């Protein structure tokens, strides 16, 4: 006899359950009690929680929890094909962008690539110290033969961060303009931010083949987009009400207000969001090497799998160097924006 027989007996559902409750050998406990030849008497202390499995013992009609997960899986597989029809074409440009950027950054010879990066850093940050740091870091990584991996990681971060900004800023603007949109978006953003990064990968693996770059691209973008959305929303909402009122009083259109007042004044916050987005892409690109994202993460993974301590440590150091550079450069850009419009 199972613990919860009385529930179904009491409710008069025994017929609906069939008589399996008493008969069939449906669990290990039943089996044991059968062989030991005595009725399984469960003390109050051991009363199981009325879980799916426990109820199933009493009534066959109640599904086991294993069936629940199976059902979820089957349900997902059922909608997978329809989902793919929609999602595939939309995300195809992402694969394309990733493949091409990866190719470009690796195909360009190092003696063009490193100076080019130094030039970009100078244009963004206007600081020779920063340029020196970049040169030293890339020089070191190239010297230990990690140049290709570094470029791969950088290419992925670059593509994903750009897409995060392209999608995130308009979403943030929409949120700042309507409280309703904000109320809908905030729980979604909270969820995206609190889900462990690995969880993103699960549905994506089912949806796309592991050979497609967009698999990790989507995971990185979903994870890293949150801060730029949040800070765009915040930045625009924080723009001085009086200034907005002045813009209205002088007859500005919504568009003029957005481009002429709100975005320029929210720019420090938006840039802070971009900085965080880039840092989060870097974190995710390492994890995404589990699903075939190339780059330094692959080396870290190799270090773990094959217990190659040296490789793991050195590639870890490479990631730290990249993180420092990306952070410093975006912060330098932010500082320049702040300096141009102190309040």
């Amino acid at each position: 006899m199972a613990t919860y027989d009385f529930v179904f007996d009491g409710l008069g559902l025994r017929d609906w359950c069939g008589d399996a409750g008493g008969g069939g050998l449906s669990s290990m406990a039943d089996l044991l009690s059968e062989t030991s030849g005595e009725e399984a008497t469960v003390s109050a202390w051991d009363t199981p929680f009325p879980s799916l499995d426990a109820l199933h013992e009493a009534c066959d009609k109640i599904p086991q929890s294993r069936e629940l997960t199976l059902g979820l899986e089957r349900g997902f597989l059922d909608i997978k094909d329809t989902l793919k029809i929609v999602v595939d074409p939309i995300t195809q440009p992402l694969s394309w962008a990733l493949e091409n950027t990866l190719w470009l950054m690796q195909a360009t010879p190092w003696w063009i690539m490193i100076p080019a990066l130094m030039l970009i850093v100078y244009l963004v940050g206007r600081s020779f110290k920063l340029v020196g740091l970049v040169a030293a870091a890339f020089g070191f990584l190239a010297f230990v033969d990690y140049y290709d991996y570094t470029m791969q990681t950088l290419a992925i971060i670059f593509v994903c961060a750009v897409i995060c900004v392209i999608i995130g800023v308009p979403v943030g603007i929409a949120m700042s303009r309507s409280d309703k949109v904000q109320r809908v978006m905030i729980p979604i953003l909270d969820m995206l931010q609190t889900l462990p990064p690995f969880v993103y990968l699960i549905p994506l693996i089912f949806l796309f083949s592991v050979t497609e770059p967009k698999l990790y691209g989507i995971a990185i973008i979903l994870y890293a987009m949150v801060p730029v959305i949040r800070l765009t929303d915040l930045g625009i909402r924080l723009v001085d009400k009086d200034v907005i009122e002045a813009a209205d009083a002088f007859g500005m259109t919504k568009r003029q207000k957005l481009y002429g007042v709100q975005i320029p004044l929210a720019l420090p916050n938006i840039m802070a969001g971009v900085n965080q987005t880039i840092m989060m892409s870097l974190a995710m690109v390492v994890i995404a090497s589990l699903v075939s994202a190339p780059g330094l993460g692959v080396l870290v993974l190799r270090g773990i799998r094959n217990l190659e301590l040296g490789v793991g440590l050195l590639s870890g150091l490479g990631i730290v160097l990249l993180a420092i550079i990306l952070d410093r450069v975006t912060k330098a850009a932010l500082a320049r924006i702040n300096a141009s419009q102190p309040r």
Partner: protein
Amino acid sequence: MKDVQSENDIKISIRHLYKIFGARPQEALEQVKNGMGKTELQEKHGHVLGLNDINVDVPSGKTTVIMGLSGSGKSTLIRHLNRLIEPTAGEVWVDGENILEYNDKQLRKLRKVQMSMVFQKFALFPHRTVLQNAGLAPSVEGERERKYADEARKWLDRVGLEGQGDQYPHQLSGGMQQRVGIARALTSNSDIMLMDEAFSALDPLIRTDMQNLLIELQNELQKTVVFITHDLDEALKLADHLVILKDGFVVQQGEPQHILLNPADPYIEDFVSDINRARVLRVRSVMERTTKPLAETAGDIDHDDTLESVIALSEGDTTLSYRVIKDGAPVGLLNMRKLVRALVPSEQSDDPDSARRSG
């Protein structure tokens, strides 16, 4: 003909304007129209009565000052003139058109072309230079900086900011920032200038400077200015027409001197009791009108002189009388005893006093 003329003299005309803040203003409006007051409405319905049946005519080319204590609805009222706030009921006529019937485009045009606004906290664009701020109105029209620079610079010079065009607002002091605010309003070339406590954030000396600047500009340009303040001295200094608000309704409006001499309400009495009347009252408000030739006057005074200056002239002698001159012609007689009586509020003539108590 005369009728048309007098109609043309009114630039903005506010009719039965109500504003109620809250979730269901229309229901609350019924209560207000049935005579419910601000406090009662707030307690019983949780709605805030912002404006209660406002009727004001703003004369063209003059300065109209709206005065009232904090929370009396001044800012709410002025924001109805360019529809930064939508009314619950009522009409606002500008140049003969009801602006509440305007669509978005017409409304933007009204704000760009006919009205400009100066704010208490300046509300300059921190990311634009002083010149770009001054040229806001033309830049909203889509003009390039090169094109509007001359006009903007002209007004910056006029308000005393020569050569500051390339600064950013945060590099200027408060007084200078508000000068930019005024230049911004002037560059728009609008007839109407709305000023919401434009000088309240400035310290007293700068404030006096700015008031004088505004008076100077007014003499030159004759804009229709609607000026808000909670300071009676400022109101009396600037106003051609004075509107006094309390709890969202107009307690009294009219010529400032007249209000000062005939306060219609204890609220206004309180207001005017602290004022230096000798400095504010003019000869024309207390003189006896007469054109017949007068003997034994101690001298001539102008009808627009302050009583303070007459006291100084008489050296305190209350036995004297003066002939009052307007535009070169005698218009009346001022007796010093009468002048002294006018300086003390309670010594007012008895009939308005009793009328006020009973009403």
